[in-house]
């Protein structure tokens, strides 16, 4: 059954005709060519495909696209401001060298973003708990925590996008 869904993608209104079960990951990567959202494990275990739906981090490989109807989706491409300026989280990941191969990075940043929206002043323990379901194989964890701490500091007093 064909159905048109409407949603906001990185701030822009979009609509999409959906006639079967599709996962958000492949819609983003294929229909919208937003390949910053990665396929890592296909079963929701690794977090490389994390995006925000109404400011909640979700595993896009497990998230039916029909469920974004009337919602707002943010991907890594949408974090950069209109002026081209990096989001404080992105800037902090760069400054802290919080990545190596970079394949988990989009999911890490969006999970951290979701965390900071809920808790703008997380403790180290809060960050570890909030990030624990995101996997990184290169072992950048230490610096990812530092980056999130420093971004949180920079973002306090209101989140800017």
């Amino acid at each position, binding site marked *: 059954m064909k159905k048109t869904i409407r949603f906001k993608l990185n701030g822009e209104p979009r609509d999409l005709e959906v006639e079967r079960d599709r996962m958000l990951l*492949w819609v983003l990567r294929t229909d919208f060519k937003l*390949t910053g959202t990665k396929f890592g494990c296909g*079963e929701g275990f690794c977090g490389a495909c994390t995006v925000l739906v109404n400011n909640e981090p979700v595993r896009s490989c497990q998230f039916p696209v029909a469920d974004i109807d009337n919602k707002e989706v943010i991907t890594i491409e949408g974090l950069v401001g209109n002026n081209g300026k990096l989001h404080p989280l992105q800037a902090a990941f760069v400054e802290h060298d919080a990545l190596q191969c970079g*394949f988990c990075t989009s999911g890490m940043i969006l999970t951290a973003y979701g965390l900071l929206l809920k808790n703008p002043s997380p403790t180290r323990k809060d960050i570890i708990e909030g990030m624990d379901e995101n996997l990184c194989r290169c*072992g950048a964890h*230490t*610096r990812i925590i530092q980056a999130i701490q420093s971004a949180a500091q920079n973002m306090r007093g209101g989140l800017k996008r």
Partner: protein
Amino acid sequence: MKKEEYQAMDFYDIARALPLSRREFIKLTGGGIVILFAIGEPSLLEAQRQRGQPLPDDFNAFLRIGEDGRVSCFTGKIEMGQGVITSLAMMLADELEVPLDSVDMVMGDTDVCPWDAGTWGSMSTRFFGPPLRAAAAEARMVLIELGAEYLQTSPSELTVEAGVIYNKSQRQKKVSYAQLAQGKKILRRLEKEKVLEKPSDFTIVGTPVLRRDAVDKVTGRAKYAGDLREPGMLYARILRPPAHDAKLISVDTSGAKTIEGTSIVQDGDMIAVLHQDRELADQALKKINAQWEKPEAKVDDKTIFDHLLNVAPPGETVSEGGNLVDGEKASKTIIEKTYLNAYVAHAPIETHAALAKVEGGKATIWAATQSPFGIKEEVASALGLPAKDVHVMTPFVGGGFGGKGTNHQAAEAAKLAKMAGRPVQVTLSRAEEFFYDTFRPAAVVKIKAGVTATGTISLWDYGVYFAGERGSQHFYDIPHHRTTAYSSGWRGQPGSHPFGTGPWRAPANNTNTFARESQVDILAAAAEMDPLEFRLKNLKDARMIRVLKAAAEKFAWTPAEAPSGRGYGIACGIDSGTYVAHMCEVEVDRKTGHVQVKRVICAQDMGLSINPEGAKIQMEGCITMGLGYALTEGIHFKGGEILDLNFDTYEIPRFSWLPQIETVLIDDRNAAPQGGGEPAIICMGGVIANAIFDAIGVRVFELPMTPERIKQALG
């Protein structure tokens, strides 16, 4: 061939030389000033020659100063997170005296980069660095000569700053590299030793520099092989067996055909579904009904060690000295132990992926690989094309760790693209990634060692089965010793492993260091000595003594005989020319067997550190990744059937495992730079095993040291 050479040569069976001819090359480079140079460890190149393989007879890397003043370095090396895109550019910028941001690294493109064996073995900096610097020095000399002509003065009157040549006494007389390169086509080959900058003159090397690829990676702009699209591209899913060596009995693809837009292609044993929508390709694959005959499972993850000992080939002596009989006589206590480790997966977050386009008798491949030139040859052979008609490009690689030297997905994509007449992408599912991984081999180490009444190691008889020899030679001062390798290299022989094995970050050395450093601790306990004091007493190697002392100082180690109850561990080792010493603190839950590593200190002596920040990041990465093989990672299998197919059962390190990590770099600016991507991982099994013993007084002899094994050891 010497043993060390043989080990590194193990990589070469997948990547043979296919040098670009000089004529083809010159066509490609265009204008500017080009310096050709050769890289590679001389002994490796010599060994390859002895194996009858062709070599790049001329050069295998080059740099170009373009007419726009930009400096490009062309190399077959690839960037997979280890940071060479930054460290190589730093060396080049420093030697050529140009700003770092004017340097472009062109990596892993087989049409424009000269042949390279592959990116592994912590070799990029060690073996690429010196000739790259020499080439840059040559380029600087050519530019200064041109500058002298232009400014009508002698080269000795000139100085260079940030890509601009100045007359030392009249600074208004100046000319930029870009101006000098205009309209020029100068080709030089690096012939002789160049006068390099002294380490004290470095302005970029040795300073902390942030990753050059970071902005692309935090914005999602960085492209990996699976992110690339070609018009008309189809996604392929390939029918895979349920177990290695399973035979296809019958197959019914009619179900797959019910999904509109699916095409099914078959080439010999390979059956694939193609669809422009990846999810529909997945669904179509599930609708293929295949019957397989699985061979009888003869081994599993419990019986594998007996099997390996049974099928082990005769041992080869790696090193020996003194006389073992005398060693036994001199020993007050002799201890024999056996150490085991499981198969371990590479498990990069990016699975193997490739996009192939075959048009007009030419193939273009974009692949996630550590070996673009290996793929070039594999694809040429799969398609029956001359190698010159295969062009391989390497976008960013999402982690390799040794596992992306094997790349069957590229030839698969190429064959499918040829059959379909459209570009085809093959991106492995996570289950395929586990199934086709070339695991770090399961291995056994048997050690018989003795210690005198005064705490001197008097006997060391060491045998390693199937891990490989790297790191098997001890570095302690032991009069009577022998090291034997049963099955050299990490691939095993036919019949030894039920599936593929291969190099895994610091191959062999993780296994060997775990065994050696556990045994040394056992000897220390037998001698009733503090494990650090015991090591220092039995060492003469000044570099090892220095890193141990540096680690101890940072850790604030205080002497105590183990088990002290504190949960402190120590281990040290050598890999890729680099010395490392680790200390850690663990907490063991006796009820659950859970181990929490609370703190890890690593001191590393890697000679001159090109990018100290990059080196520390690699050390932290090694320590974090190493927690996995130490504590949880081990493939479960039954014959050729792999039972761990995703991260639910195969547990890799997480944020909650993270210890406090402190790294100490012993920067020796006058020593040659050594490897940095692997050494700090080798001690993680040993240092944690020793800390567990110190905490609870029992020792685990098998990696990974899972809660079950710890509870079992506690009895």
